[in-house]
C-alpha cells in the first residue's frame, strides 16, 4: 500500500496571533511557522502504517512557497520516505488545493490519502472532503481511530454527538483528528537523514489548474473585546436574570 500525506505550513499554534495594523491580514513576517498540528497526526499515522508493514511507501505533499520545504523535511524526519513540493507563491483556497492534490494523486496513485482535518490558519475544514469528492473515493473525516485489514478500512469519527464507526474500503481519503495518535518527535539523527531524502519540486503553473481566488478578503480585524456586563447584588438577582433576561437556564 502506498500512502500520501498532505502537509501545510502554518503559523505555530503557540504564537499569539497579531492582526496587522492596516487590517490587511495577520502578521506572518518573522513569525514562527510549523507543521499544521493535525497534519502531524496524519504523518504519524502514515509512519505507523509503514512500521506495521501495511504501507510500503509513504510520501508527503505540500503546496506553498519555498519555505514549505521545512515542513516536508520535518515530515521526512518523522519517517516519510520522500516529498513533493508544489510551488505556489499565492495561498490557495481549499478547492484549488484539492484540485492540485488530485493531479499529484493521479500521478502517484496512492491507495490512501491522509490529511489533517483542518488547517489552523484559515480554519476552512474542507480540503479532504473536496478531494474525496473529486476523486470519487470514500471519505472519512475527523477520524480518531483507524484499522486496515485486507483492503477493508475501519474508522471512528469524532462527531458532535460522540463517535461514529464506519467501514469502508481503499482507496480512501481520511482526515485526522488530534485524538488519532500522539505524533512522535523527530530525533536528531532522523533530522539529519531527512536532509538527504528526495524532495521533488513542481511549479504549480505547470499543472494547468485555476488557482485564482474566488473569495476576496476585504479586511481582517481583531475579535471584538468582550465588555463587562453588570454586577448583581445577590444570588436571587443572579438566578432571576439568568432565567428571565438571558434565558439560559
Amino acid at each position, binding site marked *: 500500500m502506498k500512502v500520501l500525506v498532505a502537509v501545510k505550513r502554518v503559523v*505555530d499554534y*503557540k*504564537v*499569539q496571533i*497579531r492582526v496587522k*495594523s492596516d487590517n490587511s491580514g495577520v502578521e506572518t*513576517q*518573522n*513569525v*514562527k511557522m*510549523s507543521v499544521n498540528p493535525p497534519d502531524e497526526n496524519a504523518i504519524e499515522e502514515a509512519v505507523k502504517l509503514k512500521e506495521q508493514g501495511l504501507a510500503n511507501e509513504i510520501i508527503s505533499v505540500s503546496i506553498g512557497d519555498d519555505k514549505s520545504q521545512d515542513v516536508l523535511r520535518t515530515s521526512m524526519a518523522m519517517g516519510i520516505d520522500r516529498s513533493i513540493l508544489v510551488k505556489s507563491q499565492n495561498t490557495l483556497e481549499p478547492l484549488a488545493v484539492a484540485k492540485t492534490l488530485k493531479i499529484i494523486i493521479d500521478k502517484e496513485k496512492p491507495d490512501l490519502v491522509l490529511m489533517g482535518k483542518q488547517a489552523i490558519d484559515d480554519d476552512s475544514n474542507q480540503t479532504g472532503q473536496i478531494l474525496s469528492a473529486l476523486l470519487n473515493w470514500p471519505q472519512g473525516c475527523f477520524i480518531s481511530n483507524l484499522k486496515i485489514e485486507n483492503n477493508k478500512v475501519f474508522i471512528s469519527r469524532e462527531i458532535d454527538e460522540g463517535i461514529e464507526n464506519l467501514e469502508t474500503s481503499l482507496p480512501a481519503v481520511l482526515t485526522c483528528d488530534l485524538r488519532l*495518535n*500522539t*505524533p*512522535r*518527535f523527530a*530525533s*536528531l*539523527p532522523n*533530522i*539529519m537523514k531527512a536532509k538527504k531524502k528526495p524532495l521533488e519540486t513542481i511549479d504549480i503553473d505547470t499543472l494547468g489548474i485555476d488557482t485564482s481566488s474566488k473569495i476576496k478578503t476585504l479586511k481582517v480585524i481583531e475579535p471584538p473585546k468582550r465588555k463587562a456586563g453588570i454586577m448583581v447584588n445577590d444570588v436571587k438577582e443572579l438566578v432571576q436574570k439568568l432565567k428571565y433576561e438571558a434565558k439560559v437556564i
Partner: protein
Amino acid sequence: MSEVQREELNYDVVIVGAGPAGLSTAIKLKQLDTNLSICVLEKASEVGAHILSGNVFETKALDELIPNWKVLNSPINTSVTSEDFLFYTKTKSMKVPNLFLPNVLKNHGNYIISLSNLCKWLGEFAENLGVEIFPGFAASKLLYDNDQKVIGVQTGDMGLDKNFKPKDNYEPGINIKGKVTVLSEGCRGHLGKEVLKKFNLDSNNKSPQQYGIGFKEIWEINSENHQLGKVSHSVGWPLESDTYGGSFCYHAENNQIYLGYVIGLDYKNPYLSPYDEFQQFKTHPDIKKLLEGGKRISYGARALIEGGLQSLPQMYMPGALLIGCDAGTLNMPKIKGSHTAMKSGIIAAEVINDHINSNKELSEYESKFKNSWVYEELYKARNVKPSFQWGLIPAMIFTGLDQKIFGGKLPFTLQHKHADHESLIPAKKAKKITYPKYDGVITFDKPSSVYLSGTNHADDQPNHLLLNDKDLSTNFTIEKYDEPAQRYCPAGVYEVEFDNDLQKKVLKINSQNCIHCKTCDIKEPSQNIEWVTPEGGGGPIYSGT
C-alpha cells in the same frame, strides 16, 4: 534511566547555544576550514526564539566576521539618529547634556535591531556554509572522559511524563561528541555553571559575578510619537537610589519602540518586584504620553551578566571553551554584550582551528583574548558598575570622571562585594512596597504579559526548576524573606499557596510559565533553585521581536 540506549554522533566541534557568540564561532570556523564538521544545538524551537535583547548594536565584530553584511540583506537597517539620557523623578525628567555623557553611552554609528532576527539571519548564513544547526534540542548534560576532559554533550530526553516515565512519543536524548565543545548558552548557562564549579574557572576572580534582570516590551505607537532611530536611556524613578538600574527606549522600524528596563539583581529589599518597577516606570508622564494610543505587542525578560572584567572567569578548560555571556563578556556601562559576545566567539574559532589543525592548546584563548579589543573595552568599563554600591548620584559623578576624564584608565579596580543572592535583607527589616494596580492599558498583570511571550512547555513533563531542598521555602524562605521568588520571577512561575492538608504555606511552581530568564537560579537567597533544560522546543517565542 542509565540503561537507555543512546545514539551517538561525532563532530569536530559541538556548540551549545545559537546566540551571537555561538553562531560567530560556527561561522568563523567554517571560514577558516570548510572541512570542519560543526553542530550547533539550540533549545529554542527555532534560532532566535529565545533571544531577548534591546538592541542597539555595535557592528565592530560583525564587520570582522562578515565584512559585506550590508549587501547581504541583513536585518540591520535602522541607524541611530538621535539620543538622550534622562534622569527621572516621579513627575519630571531632566536631560543630561550630551557633553557630559561618557563615550560609552554614545551610540552614533550604531544600529537599532532585533537581535532575535539577526541571530536567525546568522543561523541561515552559517547553514549555508555547512554548519548543522538543530533547534529544538537542548544540551542537558556534559559528557566527560575518564580524565575529566569535556568530550561533548547529551541532548535532553523528549516525551517523559512528570514522573520521568516514558510517554508514547518518548525519544531518548543522544550523545553528541566533539573534539572541542563550545559553551555559548548566554547569561547563566546551566552547563556553564557546571564547568565553572567543576574546573574552578572563577577561582582567580577578585569579584563574585554580578547579574541584572532585563525586561523588554515592544509597542506599536502612534506615528506622531515615533522618531525612527531615536535612542533614550534613563535612570532614577521609580527605583530607589540604592538600586542599580534604568530604562531604555529604542525607536525601531514599523512604528515600533523597544521599551525596556534593567535592574541589578544585587537589590536588597525582598519586597522589590523588578516586574512591577518596570510596569510602574511606564506610568511616568513622559512614557505614558509616548505610549498613548499604542499597542503592546510583545513581552519578555532575560538576565544579563554584569560583573565585567573583574568577574570574568578563565574561559578555557580541557576539551571546551566558555564564551560570550555564558562567561560574562558584556560591557555593562554600555549595556551591550552582542558585539563582545561575537568577538569572543570569533577568537574561540581561531583557537579551536589552531587546536584541531595545528595541535595548539585551548589555553591559547587567554592571551588571544587579552590582546583583543574586547579586553580593552571591558578594562575601561570595569569600574562603573561597582561604583554604584555608593548610590546613584556619587556613582554617576564617579563614572563621569572615570570615563570622561580618565577614559577608564584609573589605576585601580573597584570590586563587587557580594554575590547577588547574598544581598537580600530579611523581610522583617525591609520596607514593604505597594505597587499601583495594573490598568490594562499601559500596565498589565503577569499572566497577560507572559501570554505575549508565547511561552509554553508540554504540560506533562518533568519539572525543570529543581529545588535542592524541597521544603526550604516552607521552612525558611517564606518566613525570612516572604518568598521573594513570587516577585523576582518575571513570569509568575512561583506562587505561595496555603496547603490545606499540611496547614502550611508552600511554594508552588508553575514551570509551564517559565521564560528561561534564569533569574531564580541567580537570586534565590539560599541558591536552592536550579534551572535545568526543559524538553527542547519549550519556552518563549521571541521570534521577530
